[in-house]
């Protein structure tokens, strides 16, 4: 199901970040970050490691607690006291660098756990939906395999199916291919392209510049905790004005 099928205005912003700040002790990792992600849009955040891009992503579902600022997802404020975080997180999918599949559950079990316990589906409904999403990532045949029986790429595709099955407003991808062998990266990126084609709103932190160029609607370049530049892939990754970005691109090519 795509986002627009759920009957929301496609003009509505899916994720809105205003004045986000984050400090770890005395270290300031994010400073006054602002970001708008529209429904159905794929925004890719790039930048060197330590630039705060993962932290920024993790603030969106509050796996990291923002120190300052406001974040809205699907019109609801995520930040602030007294929000029903679990209900909100259900609407925010996440795909992890370390994949984090549940090792004691099958691929299907990984996808259906939250469908059963959070969305409250019956076992039959959850299994049906879980299988459908495993098909979507090309792993219908592997429903009964355990994570340890799957390749890294297959595991990450299950991770994506797990996030998608809850039909969230947005999926956050935190360096989804960084832990994979190079030859397994392609299959995961293909599934992400597929996810975008289905109309899913995506915020992606990645080092895959080709993916950013080809798939992103917008690219955000972060450096030392601030958004240095934001624009089309063309503007940021092909002909960047900012010298810092040019330097970054030269280094990633080598």
């Amino acid at each position, binding site marked *: 199901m795509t986002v627009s099928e759920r009957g929301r205005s496609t003009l509505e912003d899916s994720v809105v970040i205003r004045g986000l700040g984050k400090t770890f002790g005395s270290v300031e990792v994010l400073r006054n970050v602002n970001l708008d992600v529209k429904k159905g849009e794929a925004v890719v955040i790039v930048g060197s490691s330590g630039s705060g891009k993962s932290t920024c992503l993790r603030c969106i579902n509050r796996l990291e607690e923002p120190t300052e600022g406001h974040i809205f997802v699907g019109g609801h404020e995520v930040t602030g006291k007294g929000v029903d975080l679990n209900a909100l997180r259900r609407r*925010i*999918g996440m795909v992890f660098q370390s994949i984090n599949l549940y090792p*004691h559950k099958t691929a299907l079990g990984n996808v259906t*756990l939250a469908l059963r*316990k*959070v969305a409250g589906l019956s076992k039959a409904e959850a299994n049906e939906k879980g299988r459908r999403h495993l098909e979507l990532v090309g792993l219908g045949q592997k429903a009964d395999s355990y994570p340890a029986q799957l390749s890294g790429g297959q595991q990450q595709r299950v991770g994506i199916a*797990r996030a998608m099955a809850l039909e969230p407003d947005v999926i956050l991808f935190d360096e989804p291919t960084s832990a994979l062998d190079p030859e397994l990266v392609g299959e995961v990126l293909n599934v992400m392209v597929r996810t975008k084609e289905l109309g899913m709103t995506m915020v992606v932190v990645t080092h895959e510049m080709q993916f950013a160029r080809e798939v992103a609607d917008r690219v955000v370049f972060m450096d030392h905790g601030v958004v240095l530049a934001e624009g089309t892939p063309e503007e940021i990754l092909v002909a960047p004005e900012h010298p810092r970005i040019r330097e970054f691109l030269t280094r990633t090519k080598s």
Partner: protein
Amino acid sequence: MDQIIRYFFDFPLMAAYWPDILRGFLITIQMSILTVVIGIPLGLLIAIVRLYGIRPLNILIIFYIDFFRSIPQLVLIVLAYFALPYFGLVLEPITATVMALAIVLSAFSEEIFWAGISSVAKGQWEAGRSTGLNFTQTLAYIVLPQVVRMSIPPLTNRAIGISKGTTLGSVVAVPELLNVTSSIQSNVANPTALTVGALLFLVLFLPFVRFTRWLERVYAHPR
């Protein structure tokens, strides 16, 4: 050789004592099972409470664990039987023994479960929480199943070790297997009774060890 057989394997001599031995054996079984069935779940419960991180409670828990892991079981049994009556709690010898052993086992198994919980990757919690599961659900459906699997071997060791402490019940006159067999030994001046006792302990604990090996196999997820 003859002497060894005469002293340690004179089974006809035991004929009159079989009912006593059997009764002792049943009491040992009963106490062992109760110790495990109370001690291990109690340990799990304490580990879970500790996880919620309520500071004054955790200080208490850590004191409990350290205290009961350090104190000799024998002392604890004696205290449970002879000291608790002064606080208005009069326990049967068997109850006092089981209570003391179960508490010790709970302290050790808490540490085992706690180590297991600590070793589950942070990403497992994050994955669960990111799908909207709350803390308790993430614990119950994602973390604990993994913890229980990895805790089975060390728990088995502890459970067997502490269950063998049921023999200490003799200090408060529990007619358990070793108590019965060693009195028979004195009565007939022949240690065959102890041989019988040892064999019966094997009969009790070997299936237990086999059972937990089986559990380990069934619970092991493919890797």
